[in-house]
């Protein structure tokens, strides 16, 4: 369903960061991407979603037959790509609830549907905030405004749950979460999964993968995937670190 093909991305000044990424994600699959700090994990997710800091110098990102790289950022999202950020942005003065409604209505409009009814929307919010055990007050504040690290991550999962994407890419959603929150967030991810959807988890630790079982684990190093394997690979990495892997050329 998502096919990343020979993706190369560089900074505005031309510095290459991604050096030929290939990744095939089929419906119903969960992929984990691991790798040392600075290896390009966040860049990969930002690049496929259209962050302006990166230019794609080569390759394609196909979602259900369409090259996402030909689309605007919002069109990629509306087609069903979701990226949960490693560092969610604070947007003071923009109300969380209105933001969620606007995001959802944008997707609905893209799908040819009218705006969501007020009561239906509130119901949806209530269901998901309860599932994620979120304090309803967060929803009335500015987007991520003054949220703690863990609260921001939970808010990303709320957005994901409301937007119900086809492919969810979560960038270190587990870091900064306490033990209970990790369980709750993992449940949120598992709830979303259906045989027609897919998830890509970027993480440094096995503990999230204890709750959300990956079908594949990939190791990114210096802008390339240097190893792919089954869930066991994550356990090996946890024990042995990355040094036993060959440095990518």
């Amino acid at each position, binding site marked *: 369903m998502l096919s990343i093909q020979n993706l190369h991305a560089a900074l505005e000044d031309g510095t290459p960061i991604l050096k030929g990424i290939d990744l095939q994600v089929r419906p119903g699959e969960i992929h984990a991407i691991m790798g040392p700090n600075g290896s390009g994990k966040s860049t990969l997710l930002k690049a496929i*979603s259209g962050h302006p800091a990166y230019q794609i110098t080569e390759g394609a990102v196909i979602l259900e037959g369409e090259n996402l790289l030909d689309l605007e*950022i*919002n069109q990629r999202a509306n087609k069903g790509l979701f990226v949960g950020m490693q560092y969610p*942005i604070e*947007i*003071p*003065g923009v109300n969380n609830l209105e933001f969620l409604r606007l995001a959802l209505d*944008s997707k609905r409009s893209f799908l040819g549907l009218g705006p969501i009814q007020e009561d239906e929307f509130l119901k949806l919010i209530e269901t998901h905030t309860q599932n994620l055990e979120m304090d309803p007050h967060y929803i009335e504040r500015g987007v991520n405004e003054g949220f703690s690290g863990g609260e921001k991550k939970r808010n990303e999962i709320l957005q994901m749950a409301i937007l119900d994407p086809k492919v969810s890419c979560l960038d270190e959603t587990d870091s900064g979460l306490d033990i209970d929150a990790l369980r709750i967030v993992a449940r949120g991810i598992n709830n979303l999964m259906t045989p027609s959807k897919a998830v890509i988890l970027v993480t440094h630790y096995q503990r999230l993968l204890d709750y959300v079982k990956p079908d594949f684990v990939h190791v990114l190093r210096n802008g390339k995937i240097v190893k792919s394997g089954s869930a066991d690979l994550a356990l090996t990495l946890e024990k042995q670190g990355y040094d036993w892997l060959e440095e990518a050329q």
Partner: protein
Amino acid sequence: MSISEKAYHQFLKLGIPKSRNDAWIYFPTSKLQNLNTLTPLQNNIEALGFDLGIETEKNIAALIPLFQSDKTFVKTIDKDEIAILKPKTAIAHSLFHIQNKASVSFELLNFQGSSSLQAERLDFFLEEDTKLELFFAPEGLSSELAFKHIRVFAKAGASVQILGLQKSIGTYRYSFDVILEESKSLANFRLLNLLNKNTEAHYYLNIYQNAPDTWSHQLVKNILYDKTHVAYEGAVHIAPNCPQANSDQLINSILFSDESKVSIKPVLKIYHDDVSCTHGNTCGELDKDTLYYLQARGIDLNTSKKILIQSFMASTFEGLEKTHALKQILKKL
């Protein structure tokens, strides 16, 4: 000598400001040359026995209205009274005496006169525990050259709040002298400039904190298109022997064209140690990461920009009590 004659005399003494004059460095002083031809009117300017500070006045914008208007509009607001005032016609000089515990909301308007110069002066004398709320939200074309000068004296416990939403087109200079004479008096200044065309918008603010335990706050936001130029000179003077005086100043600008410009000059004159003063100034475009974040949630670029501009604007008036003035301003946002 009458007030008007004194004002004219001082005006001649000061002369027309040149661009090297410190208080006018950002102003297109070429537009001031016609002021040479001004002559005093026969008039009836009064001051209810208050000192208008003419002999020491350095700002010609404070003097011109005193010899260019026919009379002073004088109003006393009685003790405990609550008043909402909105002038019906252009008045060049107005004087308000606000008695203890009274509360006044006053709207400063732009009047389209036939003359090429519009000069207005307002004097407010605030007694103890009074509240003055001054606001302006003008739109459209102002006269070729417009001056507004506002002078506020605040006694103990008096508060003055000045709220502005500026959308007018033209060349204008608003000057404010706020004198916090006694303790527990405060000044809160919030201004949003939303400007286009060739507008030259100039603000010249002096806050004098002449007593201990006084507070002043300035928050200015600029959204500029086309060839607009905003100049903001905000000076805070904290007198000796004034512990616990606080002041802060923050100016944020977003420029939407390469030809728009902001000039900012913060001045802090502090003659006491135990005071806390901050100032800051940012200038830029809409934040790229925030725009990306909104779009990554499916919101199109234009809507994302609109949302960010809207929140930037609204933050100018954040945390304020929903007074009459604030409601009027938010209506026009």
